[in-house]
């Protein structure tokens, strides 16, 4: 092409759409179409192909479906608050900028690059019957027999192992959001609070936390959506002893080979994601408005 009236190019109207076209086509074919298919599959009788609620009937009559809902939300309810508190603590610690704080930062975000599969194996290594925790406790004489974390008979310990693994693995995601938010708070505000003699706790409570609200909201939404999809950690550490929604979808798809019921499970994950995302947005918005009037 030999057109050198260069600046006309920048205002050219079609070019951006041509540049976006590959992405849009991809989204339509590999995201949009499967999404519609997922809805159709969930409401389809696998034998006749006609509209039917048969898949949802299978779901509602399955004991494991209700267990999966229970455990998915139970795990989220235990893990997310702990992660937010832990991430907030580490953010505040690193915000003080001491010598070597950058190294602590690098270490703390290493798990961002570690998969749920690897993290599960890492903690299985520590918590198993002859794992390092049991070795240390036995050597110290604190216990005689190994503590069991795994197996159907030790369900509560399995939950504990899942919680530990998830906190180790995914707190970094919450941390990155909160730490970024913390750095955007002007030093002026905190210095002003110091001038008026605020203690560290008062600074956190009255200056930092209110200004961190948007970051907290983002972190909570992201973590909750991930929590609804929890799969590999539970599957590796507890199998179907602790059923979760994504685990059941995997089970119906890969082991029972019934993609229609699997699609119904997937729809429930999407459904809960949308509802919770909406609730979070509403909740934070009203609080923000209240803070504005009060």
């Amino acid at each position, binding site marked *: 092409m030999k057109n050198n009236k260069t600046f006309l190019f920048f205002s050219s109207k079609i070019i951006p759409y041509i540049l976006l076209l590959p992405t849009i086509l991809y989204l339509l074919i590999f995201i949009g179409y499967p999404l519609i*298919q997922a809805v159709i599959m969930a409401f389809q009788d696998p034998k006749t192909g006609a509209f039917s609620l048969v898949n949802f009937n299978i779901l509602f009559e399955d004991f494991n479906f209700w267990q999966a809902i229970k455990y998915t939300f139970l795990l989220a309810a235990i893990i997310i608050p702990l992660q937010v508190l832990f991430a907030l603590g580490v953010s505040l610690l690193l915000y003080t900028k001491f010598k070597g704080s950058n190294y602590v930062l690098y270490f703390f975000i290493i798990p961002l690059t570690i998969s749920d599969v690897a993290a599960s194996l890492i903690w299985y290594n520590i918590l198993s019957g002859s794992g390092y925790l049991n070795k240390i406790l036995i050597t110290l004489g604190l216990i005689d027999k190994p503590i069991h974390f795994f197996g159907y008979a030790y369900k509560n310990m399995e939950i504990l192992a899942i919680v530990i693994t998830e906190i180790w693995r995914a707190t970094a995601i919450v941390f990155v959001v909160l730490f970024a938010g913390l750095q955007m708070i002007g030093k002026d505000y905190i210095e002003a609070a110091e001038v008026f003699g605020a203690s560290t706790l008062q600074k956190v409570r009255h200056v930092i936390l209110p200004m961190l609200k948007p970051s907290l909201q983002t972190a909570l939404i992201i973590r909750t959506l991930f929590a609804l999809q929890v799969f590999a950690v539970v599957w590796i550490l507890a199998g179907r002893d602790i059923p979760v929604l994504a685990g059941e*979808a995997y089970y119906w798809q890969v082991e029972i080979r019934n993609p229609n019921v699997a699609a119904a499970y997937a729809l429930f994950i999407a459904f809960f994601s949308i509802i919770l995302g909406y609730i979070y947005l509403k909740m934070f918005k009203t609080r923000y408005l209240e803070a504005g009037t009060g």
Partner: protein
Amino acid sequence: MSRVAPGEKTLILKKLVIYALAVIVSSWILVPLALIFISAFAVPEEYYDLTRIIPTSFTLENVNALLFVLKEWKATLNSIIVALLTIAISFALGLPAGYALARYIFPGKDMFKLLIISLRMFPLMIMAIPLTILYLNLGLSDTLLGVAIAHTSLALPFVVLITSSIFVSVPVEYEEAGMIFGLTRFETFFRITLPLILPGLAAAAIFTFVMSWNEVFVASVLTLVNRTLPADILVSVLAAPDPYKFAAGFIMVLPAMIFVFIARKYLVAMWGITLR
């Protein structure tokens, strides 16, 4: 009570507390990592010996057996191929889109941005199940290309947003200057813009690699014979003795660790962009 240096005393105490906490936080991450490295190379008898805390004899046998007895070398190779294909596809799609977002103002831009951002939030595992049927029709069933195409949906929003923020950092004036001196738009891009953004793109590619390498649900659902490493761990390695699992954990962690080391400067900024 001496009133000479109470402030100094509390300052020292404060520093001590901060450093103690820093050591605890670092250990919380580093010790479990070190332990999987140790277990991957420990002689199994020593791992199972409850009276010995840290194994002292090491062997390559666990990793060797995992790769060549369980034949996980093939799954490892599959994972690498899928990750490289994912980089290729998501960059081919995302780079032009990122450029468009950075350089043009056009109707529908905000809607496109919103679409990309919401895609990042959406539970993509939902797509995996219907994709099996679409792939049957496209001849992509149980293929590495099929997995890579699905993994692209994870990486694409990330690549679009990162490349657009990298492009914004290159002044338009450079490109205008190039075109004034007679380069076409394509030449300008390849000879002026691309060299400037290469380090940022390399970091984005690394993150795409790690995302694909780590993904397990979609890969498990879409493949049967040509499984990626994490997908095969769920099936074969979990049924194998413990030392195999530790060796598998070690191999899963390794590329991620290398990449963190290479791209550590970009890590926080990049995750900031993807999670904002």
